């Protein structure tokens, strides 16, 4: 165990979390169904005019993705917290940030990646062009990991609190606004014939920044919540 390298540790945590999730597949599906449902509700509320739907599609998909990723945040640490695994994790000699990064990666694979994969189908509901769909996928691929990372901070801070589910959305949603703006903006830009490079590179920059800082911040938050 002591000889475990950092990438090895990362893989181990991801594998473990994925395995645990596979035993409770319903959880993953619930998030996905929620996402599909929210997106499908908008045409019912707004009306079937394709002109309008095409215009609101990027925003709708992004807001729904934001809400869907909030749903599963509560689960990121709570199971480990309740059965005492988290306390053990704080004690291991390896870097806690790396462990946290592993958990974030697993969370993204379970709640972010499915959204990315299903999003094109939803885009078709809104009559989006093929080019716009590709940009939507790229933007979601860059943006949804950031949602998981920022969400991890909120999940760690609200660990074990009453009303944690609503509270975590209250903390995390305002911080996710830049991702929403650049993500939806990229798709809108391609629809109006502008370059998407600036939007996507800004999303990429946010992703890199979060990748560097959020695991460490989340680790600190966990220590604060667990002492």
């Amino acid at each position, binding site marked *: 165990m002591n000889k475990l390298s950092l990438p090895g540790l990362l893989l181990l945590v991801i594998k473990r979390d994925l395995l645990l999730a596979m035993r409770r597949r319903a959880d993953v599906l619930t998030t996905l169904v929620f996402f599909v449902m929210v997106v499908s509700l908008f045409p019912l509320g707004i009306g079937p005019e394709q002109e309008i739907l095409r215009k609101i599609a990027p925003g709708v998909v992004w807001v729904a993705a934001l809400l869907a990723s909030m749903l599963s945040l509560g689960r990121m640490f709570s199971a480990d917290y309740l059965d005492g695994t988290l306390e053990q994790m704080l004690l291991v000699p390896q870097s806690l940030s790396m462990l946290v990064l592993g958990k974030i990666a697993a969370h993204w694979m379970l709640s972010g990646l499915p959204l990315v994969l299903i999003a094109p189908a939803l885009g078709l509901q809104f009559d989006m062009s093929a080019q716009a769909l590709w940009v939507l996928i790229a933007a979601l691929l860059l943006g949804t990991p950031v949602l998981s990372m920022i969400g991890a901070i909120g999940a760690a801070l*609200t660990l074990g*609190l009453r009303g944690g589910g609503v509270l975590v959305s209250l903390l995390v949603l305002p911080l996710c606004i830049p991702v929403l703006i*650049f993500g939806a903006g990229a798709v809108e830009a391609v629809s109006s014939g502008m370059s998407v490079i600036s939007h996507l590179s800004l999303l990429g920059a946010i992703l890199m920044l979060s990748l560097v800082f959020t695991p460490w911040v989340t680790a600190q938050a966990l220590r604060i919540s667990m002492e």
Partner: protein
Amino acid sequence: MAINWFKYSAPSTFYGLAGRLVPWFAWPAALLFCIGLYVGFFVAPSDVVQGEAYRIIFIHVPASILSMFIYLIMAGYAALGLIFNTRLSAMMATALAPTGALFALISLWTGALWGKPMWGAWWVWDARLTSELILLFLYLGFIALQASIDDPRRADRAGALLAIVGSVNVPIIYFSVKWWNTLHQGSTIKFTGTSMHIAMQQAMFTMLLACWLYVIAVSLVRVRSIILERERNNQWVTELAEVKR
């Protein structure tokens, strides 16, 4: 000259100091409010473009500036509390948050009342108004997080971490909202260039100073209550004149 700054970071010492300081901030604040309003309404001329409606600026701009400034101060105290483990800094952060949220609210309210006659709409998704709204959300998140944690030490530290993350995010949020706004051809209130009359400037700065003193006075009173609550089992609290009475 060596001053022991940490002397006043002990809640027991600071409690007395804060009590003595409050009147020195509260009364000048009241006086400056009166002066600022007098200059703003009776000395400053009406604006060429906006007529009388611009007079909302004397409360709107100070409230907006302070709501952002208070968040930074709050995050600063929070960071101090985390780094040096001083309980008092965390208490100051907690005491500042409600007032900061209040100023964000005032800024939004006065912004809407200014927007109606100028833009013809109560709310416009202008970059600054939108950022102010998000700032209000950040304050509410901070307050809600601290309110839902029972253990004061965890509440302090969790709130501090959130405030720091929020303050790092504020510039990113502001930039992204501004970018979003320019792409969507939003409108902005533009004051008529640099031609602000000298009396207008004086009124605005007086009001800014008044609001700042008000914030200090109110948060000092609030932090005194927090200190008493937290330290209620300590010897020095039970020996206070106002408690013994």
